[in-house]
């Protein structure tokens, strides 16, 4: 099935502009590396772009760097290099690709990234913490673990008004103040609250638009593919958080999607099945992986990936700029907590997506590398199937390691799944259920 042809300048702009911004960002990192300026190493869940921008620190996302090695089909070289020095085949591939990247002086297929002046991380994934410990040993630079409590139990999300919320928020706010002190020492720059405010204003605008982007995909036909297009959006969402360019990008993206909706332009010419994706994409065969679904007229209308890899931006949370630090604490807490919920307690979120987005099937993609997003998926599938009469597919592979990605096997399973969807639809049409 072909993608929709571009009908005028606005359609496809988000993808083009996303690629351009990504390139720009990366060129900026390359320039920083050449000039010997160090960066802030951060992660997608709780990157604190607002704060780091205010300190003019170039932001390096090692997860994104690593996935780029996979998309560009060079991950195996990096993985092998890390495994040669003792890292197990059974640990997160992102970590290993990054270890090799650091050993290569920051060299990546897309260019070079600077060394870390500081690493700021959250506990949204425990591997973040182990990963930063590796850098500490390599570079002896400061790292700051922003410890973020999240939901303690399914159905008890962290939000204003929930018991203990204020205690959690105070903890995060206290840590933010410590971090600001550390950033001042590390960069030699005084903290400027107005710059933080400005960055938070841009983040507000981005959140507003990002939420709208996701909502707009309820349209039939759906306007973007949550997996392929969604990954481009996520790149901008992370790399340009707190920046004017990021805010503008998402405003324009909303405009594009509204336009597509008004003109009935879908992401596929002939959308047959609306799917939701649970987990992390398969980057070693990224384009092909999406095609395996789109060839059957299947498109991903939403995904848990858009939720957790945007660090909770999907909620549309907006900061109160009158009280920036306290409000930043609340936003980080709520956003990261939502990201964690979408990995550990996703049943409710999936249940509502299935209804609101008129989903025909759920694709679970647990991967070898990532226990954070994969451990509970088989059980989640079982629970969701008890709750909802919706077909699902469970396919295992990896987001980095092509040794465990078998395209032929995936294709067989996916083809069979669509056959099932098709016959189910025919039976429903014929009144047999």
């Amino acid at each position, binding site marked *: 099935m072909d993608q929709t042809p571009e009908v005028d300048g606005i359609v496809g702009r988000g993808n083009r502009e996303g690629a351009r911004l990504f390139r720009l960002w990366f060129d900026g990192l390359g320039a920083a590396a050449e000039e010997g300026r160090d960066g802030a190493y951060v992660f997608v869940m709780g990157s604190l772009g607002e704060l780091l921008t205010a300190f003019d620190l170039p932001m390096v996302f090692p997860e994104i760097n690593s996935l780029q090695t996979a998309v560009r089909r060079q991950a195996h070289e990096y993985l092998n290099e890390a495994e040669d*020095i*003792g*890292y*197990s085949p*059974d*640990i*997160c591939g992102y*970590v290993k690709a990054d270890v090799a990247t650091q050993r290569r002086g920051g060299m990546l297929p897309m260019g070079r990234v600077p060394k870390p002046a500081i690493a700021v991380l959250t*506990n949204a*994934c*425990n*591997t973040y*913490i*182990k990963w930063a*410990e*590796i850098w*500490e*040993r390599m570079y002896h630079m400061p*790292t*700051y*673990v*922003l*410890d973020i*409590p*999240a*939901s*303690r*139990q*399914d159905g008890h999300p962290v939000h204003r008004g929930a018991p*203990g919320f204020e*205690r*959690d928020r*105070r*903890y995060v706010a*206290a*840590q933010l103040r*410590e971090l600001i002190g550390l950033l001042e020492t590390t960069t030699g720059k005084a903290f400027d609250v107005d710059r933080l405010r400005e960055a938070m204003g841009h983040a507000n605008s981005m959140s507003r638009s990002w939420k709208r982007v996701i909502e707009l995909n309820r349209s039939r036909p759906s306007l973007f593919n949550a997996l392929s297009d969604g990954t481009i959006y996520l790149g901008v969402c992370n790399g340009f958080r707190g920046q004017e360019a990021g805010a503008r990008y998402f405003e324009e993206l909303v405009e594009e999607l509204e336009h597509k909706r008004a003109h009935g332009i879908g992401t596929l010419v002939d959308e047959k099945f609306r799917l939701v994706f649970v987990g992390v994409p398969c980057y070693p065969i990224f384009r092909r992986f999406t095609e395996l679904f789109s060839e059957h007229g299947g498109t991903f209308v939403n995904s848990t990936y858009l939720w957790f890899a945007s660090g909770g931006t999907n909620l549309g949370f907006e900061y109160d700029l009158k009280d920036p630090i306290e409000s930043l604490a609340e936003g980080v807490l709520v956003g990261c907590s939502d990201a964690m919920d979408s*990995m*550990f*307690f*996703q*049943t409710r979120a999936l249940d509502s997506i299935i209804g609101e987005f008129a989903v025909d099937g759920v694709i679970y993609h*647990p991967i*070898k590398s*990532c*226990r*954070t997003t*994969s*451990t*509970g*998926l*088989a*059980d*989640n599938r*079982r*629970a969701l199937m008890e709750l909802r009469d919706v077909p699902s597919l*469970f396919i*295992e592979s990896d987001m980095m390691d092509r040794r465990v990605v078998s395209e032929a096997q995936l294709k067989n399973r996916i083809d069979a799944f669509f056959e099932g969807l098709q016959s189910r639809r025919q039976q429903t049409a014929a009144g047999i259920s």
Partner: protein
Amino acid sequence: MNATPLFPEWRGRDLDGILHAAIELLENTDFPTVKRWRESGGKVVGHFQVYFPEEIAHAAGMLPFKMRGAPIKPRQADSRFGSYLCSILKTSLELALSNRVPLELFVTHPICDAARNLAGVFGRNFPYPCQILYLPQNATSPAAREYLRGEYDRVRELCGEIAGREVTDERLRAAIGVFDRNRALLRELYAIKRGTPWLVAAHEAYALTAIAGLVPREEHNELLEAVLPLLRARGTHPQDRVRVVFEGGFCEQPPFELIRSIGRSCYVVDDDFLIGLRWLLEDVGTQGDPLDALADAYLNRSSYSPVQHDPRKLKEAMLLERVRGANAQAVILAAAKMCEPGLEEQVAYVHALDEAKLPYFVTEFEENMTSFDTLEIQLETFVENLLFV
């Protein structure tokens, strides 16, 4: 506490008889002590690895049961998990699904990416509360202590509600007293291992420690109080064995048989088996605010593991300290199969031991392993090399 002891089998027996009973209890995958506790109307808190403030459950009159998997087949649990996961997750769930260990509360911790998911997995399978207890990963933040105290307070409320009994400060202090005694006894057991390892074999010390997670601590105290003097008086003589530290047993436990076979060729003079039971290194004390005292002890007077981040505890430096403290000649660096934090830490340990010119033996294990022949041969070769060069 229960009037009738849950584990009476050791009473009135000589040292060998006591050790035999302890090992039998440990190897019994029907968990008879939990059954007996429940038969007398008791409620159980299942807490997953590594550390849980058991004093709180104890003060609520509940049995804190250490969920550390078991050498059983995860028949029902298997379908709840995908591939690429360590075993302890599956067998811990199996204990609950197969009703071997019925619970009133399940608590897990964000020790790793897999374990945190257990709150969701258990929660979808059981009607009782299944929670995450957030232990601080920013241990040196001045705000961490108050935050942790708040977390403990939350657990206190919850346990109180489930048990139908208020967990007063008084009860907490009493529980801390019992546990402080237990910590002192466990320290003594480890002092025997370190100083006179021929008096207690690795697997015997392991069984004696692990029982802490199966019975109320008063009973465990009585057991250790009876056993420690008998061990000290044991007539066994030192042999020419390599003194090793075993590192890598902080979460999934190596098969008991593996520990026994290591003990055949080495003296395991220190280790991190079930480190959560020995996490607090000193008395917590029964004065002042008990939850604050527990929080302070967790943060400031505690052991180390790959799953706690604390810049004051560089793990490889802590390992070297453990090696020196036990006057060990070599290290067995183990990791559970598929254990991300364990495997990652192994790389750092290897580098540190290389630098310190300390010999080490690297291995992976799985709780369901049944054949140790190859490993035993490799280990023997390692030991011979050390003894004869």
